[in-house]
């Protein structure tokens, strides 16, 4: 599915880390999010050094790794997902870099030669399982050449994050490189739910308003109200992670807890916030 098309109407983009607390429970959670109105899914592949994450998502990543979640399990999970929304893979560059014929690579390492050939194998496998694009928080535009090329080869999108500090030529270049959507970082810092959406949000959106690519705002969104405000400020999508992971973190008995129900309710609040924002934007001013 074409990622940009998912933003024809303002979109709700939830994030979860796959494997927290297990791959099978993630399946239930994802289905609940879709029932709650998800338009795009950002699914995290856990990496041991999640330097861009705040404590909430960091905790989720740790639990997923402790559960033994591997890239291959992640791909199989996405492959078997039966949902009607595009999936974006969010992870860190080293996992892309390492993926491939590990046996051959280790043999080559033992011989003293470096064998890693970049993200090619990872992208190929992602395309196979139906992933639409990537968000890689530790890969700035300057280092993204090989991944951008691999994505082009396999028809995948590569989403870049525009930070409050991103300006001028770098912003231009990033918009050029980005496809699918632009991830607009609402404030400085790391991921994490906040009670208020930063004032920086509007300024950040204004900065990229001229570009013809969907803009999805993330970092700190936790309520339907916030989602509505963000869409009213001009966003084409709202990305929510920590507020959902907070629900996942409270899971209890794997067979009997109500996490899916609560996730669905939270997703509905957020997607309805997005829809309300879209409706307000559609009305003529002053009404």
């Amino acid at each position, binding site marked *: 599915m074409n990622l940009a098309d998912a933003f024809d109407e303002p979109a709700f983009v939830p994030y979860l880390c796959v494997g927290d607390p297990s791959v099978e429970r993630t399946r239930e959670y994802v289905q609940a999010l879709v029932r709650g109105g998800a338009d795009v899914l950002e699914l995290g592949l856990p990496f041991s050094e999640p330097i861009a994450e705040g404590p909430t998502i960091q905790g989720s990543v740790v639990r997923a790794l402790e559960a033994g979640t591997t890239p291959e399990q992640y791909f199989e999970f996405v492959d078997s997902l039966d949902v009607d929304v595009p999936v974006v893979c969010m992870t860190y560059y*080293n996992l892309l870099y390492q993926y491939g014929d590990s046996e051959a690579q280790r043999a080559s390492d033992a011989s003293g030669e470096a064998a890693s050939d970049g993200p090619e194998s990872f992208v190929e496998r992602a395309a196979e399982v139906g992933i639409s694009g990537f968000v890689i928080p530790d890969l*700035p535009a*300057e*280092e993204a050449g090989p991944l951008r090329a691999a994505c082009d080869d396999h028809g995948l999108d590569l989403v870049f994050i525009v930070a409050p500090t991103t300006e001028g030529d770098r912003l231009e270049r990033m918009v050029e490189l980005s496809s699918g959507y632009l991830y607009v970082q609402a404030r400085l810092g790391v991921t994490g739910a906040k009670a208020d959406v930063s004032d920086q949000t509007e300024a950040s959106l204004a900065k990229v308003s001229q570009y013809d690519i969907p803009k999805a705002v993330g970092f700190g969104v936790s309520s339907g109200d916030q989602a509505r405000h963000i869409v009213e400020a001009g966003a084409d999508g709202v990305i929510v992670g920590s507020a959902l992971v907070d629900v996942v973190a409270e899971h209890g008995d794997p067979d009997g807890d109500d996490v899916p129900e609560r996730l669905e309710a939270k997703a509905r609040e957020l997607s309805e916030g997005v829809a309300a924002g879209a409706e307000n934007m559609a009305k003529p001013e002053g009404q």
Partner: protein
Amino acid sequence: GTFGRYGGQYVPEALMPAVQELEDAYERYVLNNVDGFVDEFRRRLRDFGGRPTPLQRADRLSDRLDREVYLKREDLLHGGAHKLNNALGQVLLAKYMGKERIVAETGAGQHGTATAMAAAHLDMPCEVYMGTRDIQRQRPNVFRMRLNGSEVNPVSAGRGTLKEAINETMRDWATNVEDTHYVIGSVVGPHPFPEMVRTFQSVISEEARAQVQEQAGQLPDSVVACAGGGSNTMGTFHEFVGDESVDLFAVEAGGSSLAVDEETGVAPNSASLSTGTEGVLHGARTKLLQDSDGNVVESHSVSSGLDYAGVGPELAHLVDTERVTPVNVDDDEALEAFHLLSQEEGIIPALESAHAVAFARANPEQLGGLTVINVSGRGDKDLESVIEETENRELENAPGMDIFERAAGGSGGGL
């Protein structure tokens, strides 16, 4: 920004402008001495830091190994380790850049204490991130940072050690990037850090190269330094890299074994140059200890200062191009070398530095006729752990420590 296939700037977008601002400042102040930065840095290194540090002929070690052994005495630098060369340089640079706040990470506490000292000296507010487990294990260094006026922020994620502290400092930097400089403690991280830290640390080899020629009338046949992240290694090697006759040995921590336990995700060593594979960690492409998926494994060494899963990209490149020879010694050999240098030279080395001595001791034939070993730091910080580790092993040259029982059992007046 790269060294062969290594290096780069793999950081969140929010940090890129800061990284680029640092690149500019590095070029301006450090490389081109604008506003007399380099002059002030050198003066403060001398007056505050105690440079130059001596190059000392080790008389008894020379006899024992039947060749000329010289020690570069970075243990005499203010704070007790080479770390100040870099910390002072970066805090001063932050001041020139108009930054108002310093953050740093620390594992064993050596880089944290050096940064805290430099920040106090230059009147910059400073916060140091440190794992909760390391805080409990390294109390004296925590005291020192607090006494120097730095905040110490406990990091409870993961195992509560260096790797987690680095992640957390990156997060602080990403949040406060506009007024804050992150003082990275080794030749790691995104460009320009590896090159900049190496430049600040190169004063070691600059001095050593001149001193050995003055004292011995020749260049050394070999130079030996321990390698964790690689800052003392690169500092000790840099000025010798162009001297093709000088063999350069980077001694890594072999820990208890060179194998990685994929099941538990633990490498009982820190030998990323010898056994690591290429990957991306903490902002740079380099050699690191990782599992086959690409997740970073826990490293181990009896020396907490070497206990890091990555290594500087320039050092990785120098190993690939065979200019630097990576070697390693295990925990036992390092402890024996610690005791050897303490007893025979009157220098209690850091456990990190003991690795370099241990390699020289075990492989004298590889050193040529004259070798320079970098004693990167003093061992006062390691006393308690050395006593503990020594008690658990059979080391031929370890002194007994029953003195405390004897002192407790003594009778008064002694009739």
